[in-house]
């Protein structure tokens, strides 16, 4: 770890001020000199590994007072960016009306981490690519643009098969973001110009030729809340992994359905563990909508979700696995009692 200054932001303006002051032009957010600190379970970790080297830390935890709401009120859901993963996962209203959200959080990390970690930090967590996290590897386009990608022909079992580029195949590791993107959530952003909202689907950026740019957030901007409209009681988060708990997904599916009289009126499918960003499988959704559910349909939808997938030496299995996970999650969602 390198020395850094530490500042507690007692109100949003102060946080935005402190973060923007340190922002240099043309520096992507991941390289910004000042970084907000929420639970710290990603940020401090990467600082210890010397991967992130911010000169200034702006502690936004004092904002929790206003930024940690959990409000499943009426037909709309609002979640504050500083709400803790564990509190949201344990919330009755979330479990009842948004099981996909509750389970994506409950199946993530460990109890200790969920007690520390916030929703805002969670969606901003960075890839677990071993070559990214170990600075002794020179070739990582995400850390050093243009340096190459050690994972491409290295140990890449955990890496992505969707949304990849010839620059980077790092998996977006989080679970919760899949629930958000499936439910068409919006993200509320607080910055110098005040507060704006945009579809959550527009937050993350696929690596393309700039893997160091991970989100559309600008230095000086903070996520303050997430919002979902409608209730999604028929929703599932299915996560496949090597061990029973405390591990990132090898493949996961967030599925939300609206089934009326046996017909799928609306379908939402998002994929985790297999893509470089939170991944919405719209092709699969299109196949499902308006249909009666059966296994063959689930299979077709799953195939469609992975039609563009490309595996490498150690991760090709994720394509077949991902399809089975999607099919099974659809089945579970259809048959769940609500």
């Amino acid at each position: 770890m390198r020395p850094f200054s530490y500042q507690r932001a007692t109100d949003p303006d102060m946080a935005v001020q402190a973060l923007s002051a340190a922002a240099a032009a043309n520096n992507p957010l991941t390289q910004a000199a000042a970084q907000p600190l929420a639970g710290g379970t990603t940020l401090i970790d990467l600082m210890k590994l010397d991967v992130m080297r911010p000169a200034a830390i702006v502690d936004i935890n004092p904002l929790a007072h206003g930024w940690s709401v959990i409000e499943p009120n009426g037909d709309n859901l609002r979640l504050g960016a500083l709400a803790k993963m564990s509190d949201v996962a344990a919330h009755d209203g979330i479990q009842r009306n948004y099981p996909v959200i509750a389970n994506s959080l409950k199946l993530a990390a460990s109890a200790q981490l969920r007690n520390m970690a916030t929703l805002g930090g969670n969606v901003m967590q960075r890839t677990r690519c071993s070559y990214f996290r170990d600075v002794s590897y020179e070739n990582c386009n995400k850390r050093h643009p243009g340096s190459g990608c050690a994972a491409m022909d290295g140990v890449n079992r955990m890496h992505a098969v969707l949304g990849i580029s010839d620059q980077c195949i790092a998996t977006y590791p989080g679970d919760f973001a899949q629930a958000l993107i499936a439910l068409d959530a919006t993200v509320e952003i607080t910055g110098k110009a005040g507060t704006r909202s945009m579809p959550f689907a527009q937050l993350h950026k696929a690596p393309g030729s700039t893997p160091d740019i991970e989100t559309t957030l600008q230095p000086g901007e903070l996520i303050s809340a997430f919002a979902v409209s409608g209730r999604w009681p028929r929703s599932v988060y299915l996560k496949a992994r090597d061990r029973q708990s405390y591990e990132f997904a090898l493949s996961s599916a967030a599925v939300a359905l609206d089934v009326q009289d046996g017909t799928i009126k609306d379908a939402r499918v998002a994929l985790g563990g297999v893509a470089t960003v939170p991944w919405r499988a719209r092709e699969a959704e299109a196949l499902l909508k308006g249909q009666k559910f059966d296994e063959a349909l689930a299979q077709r939808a799953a195939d469609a979700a992975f039609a563009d997938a490309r595996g490498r030496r150690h991760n090709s299995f994720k394509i077949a696995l991902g399809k089975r996970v999607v099919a099974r999650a659809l089945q579970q969602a259809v048959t769940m009692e609500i």
Partner: protein
Amino acid sequence: MTAAAPEPKINMGQPVPRYDAVVKVTGRATYASDMPLADPAYAFLVTSAIAKGRIDRFDLDDARRVRGVIDIVTHENGPKLKESKLFSNGGYAGTTIQPLKSADIAHDGQIIAVVIAESYEAAREAANRVKVSYTAAAPSATFDSPGTTIAAAKGQNAQFKEDPKVGNFAKAFEEAEVKLTASYDTPTQHHNPMELFSTSCAWMGDELVIYEPSQFVYGLKYGVAEQLGIDADKVRVVNPYVGGGFGSRGSMTPRTAIIASIAKRLSRPIKLVPTRDQGFTITTYRAETRHEIKLGASRDGKLLALKHEGAEISSRPDAYCVGGTKTTTRLYACPNVDSLVSIVRADRNTPGFMRSPPEVPYLFALESAMDELAVKLNMDPVELRRINDTTVEPIGGKPYTSRSLMACFDEAAKAFGWAQRSPQPKSMSDGDWLIGYGCAATCYPTQMGPAAARVRLQRDGRTRVEIAGHEIGTGAYTVVAQTAAERLGVPLEKVAVFIGDSDLPPAPVAGGSNSTASTCSVVMMVCDQIRQRLFKAAMPSQSLTDKAKETVGIGQTPATQAAKGDRPLDLEKAFDALGVGVVEEYGEWKPEGAPLDSFRAMHSGQVRLVGGHAMKDQIAYAFGAEFVEVRVNRFTHEIRCPRLVGAFAAGRIMNPRTARSQLMGGLIWGMSSALLEATDIDERNARYVNDNFADYLVPVNADVPGVEVILLSEQDDHINPAGVKGLGELANVGTNAAICNAIYHATGQRIRKLPVRLENIEV
């Protein structure tokens, strides 16, 4: 789960709670890096980012500018250290690759610089700022990598003298009615004990104290003295508690002498706490292995021919090998046996002991093959073991001192509900999950080594036992205290035990599961010396018969099993008769068949273990049987193991509570090894990739819902005075095969490569 403190059966001690339980759960146990030092400086290691080549240049400017940096030590200004030989060649070291000696790099993560600073943080920051230019060469990573060399182990490794053979394998295999040929692979694994590989060194004049988690304080003492070129009497190693070892701390690593010499140079105590990932390359590991097994049997299941060929990875300079054929060729009755062990050299750090080093990979192969053979024979795998059970090992025709393998199978099968298994693969399921039952034999050689102890008894019964044993979490304090209490007939609370300090009388390495057998045997012997003195003083007219020696108790509680009519000795009267307040005895014990130089070796930090197959007229092993239930998800192919049941017989069980803990931990480790643990190697550059606890998977609680340990009574009077076989490395051996056998039963798919991951399942 079975109770934490199982009721003792015949030939078992009391399940007393751990001697160190309270200090451990209250966080007061002092591990090496907890030891207070006066004004220490902090060291942080810089390790190489290439596996082969040379360092061209260091750029240290940036690092030196970090506030608080005191010194940066590289090969250019490094300490001049003497070489130490590999432990298997009569030395102390786990590797002969000596870092900071030259610009050459022999493996990934080799120590190339040590930054010393006023704080840990400054040292780490400066280490991050060290820039190194290398000329890299293409390294050979592992099997099949270009540039590796292969040669028979025999002749290279002093501890692997012979490839066991008997009869005429080729002919018997040719003629056998049922034949099996199969290949098996095991991965690289790292010990990852919780306590990091820390080292603190402090000099007082010309005397050095080392605080380091070690499984062999005497070995480290003599090894460091040799490297520094100083008198071993000036070196003391202290570690009252070791946060897990599993073999990783059995031999000396290069870091200790390096830190000691920097401490000397700077005239300051130095504390080093390497990171988790550095632990992967600055110590040893379990190397990957490959096996080919050939079995020939008659239709009714009798083994007629067995051949086991194994290949193991080692480093370029060191011929480390585990050679588990010494066990697999002797486990079952079979008249025609052949074997060969080879060592494949690659550009890697030198591997070393890891919990049951030979048995884990080699029995995985044999016990998987036995299951495959049972399938070919359409026979229950337990029955196949019964048909080939033996009391005499086939290679040298020596009798097992005792062997309860089939009793273990029967007990474990009953507890597990093996009878409910429908033998057809893929025939059992529960909702989304295919269910499989599998079993395997487990075994581990009984070993012991020369040991010394000092015991002091006071008039009021207070007892002090001193022995340089090691508390690596196994219960060493507890069983030593129990032994003294039983033998002297004093209450357990009155016994104080001092271990983990090279100023105490020497004990062997805490490896090879010899500790309980060796330390308890010597403590028994020394306690008996005290009993004899007291007995002679109190009852000078009576002759001290052997029987009385065995049975007469002193103090309040009669010792062991005091025969009816024997009066306990009145301790106060005995002390009055002797006219002293304290009786103290020192003694040295060596096992039968120990080499002549045993005691000399013991006093110079060298190991002379005897036992297993290497005994003169007999062979001694502990046995067990392990049954597992595996569930494989039809959709995700996730593999879970909800039940592990093991029955074990290991001679006298000193303490059923600590024994159960060891065996339970072993079963869990075995499951971990079968399903989770593997160090990934990037073959392009021979580097370990998943060198952290998030990526190197070990089970979490949710992975281990049910473990049952059954301890069988077994009495063995042929091994050592304590009658102890040792069981620390017994339980994690069979599990690998048991799990693969269960996966076969669940899915119909035979998997011969560990670990089994969901992508290996095709259902």
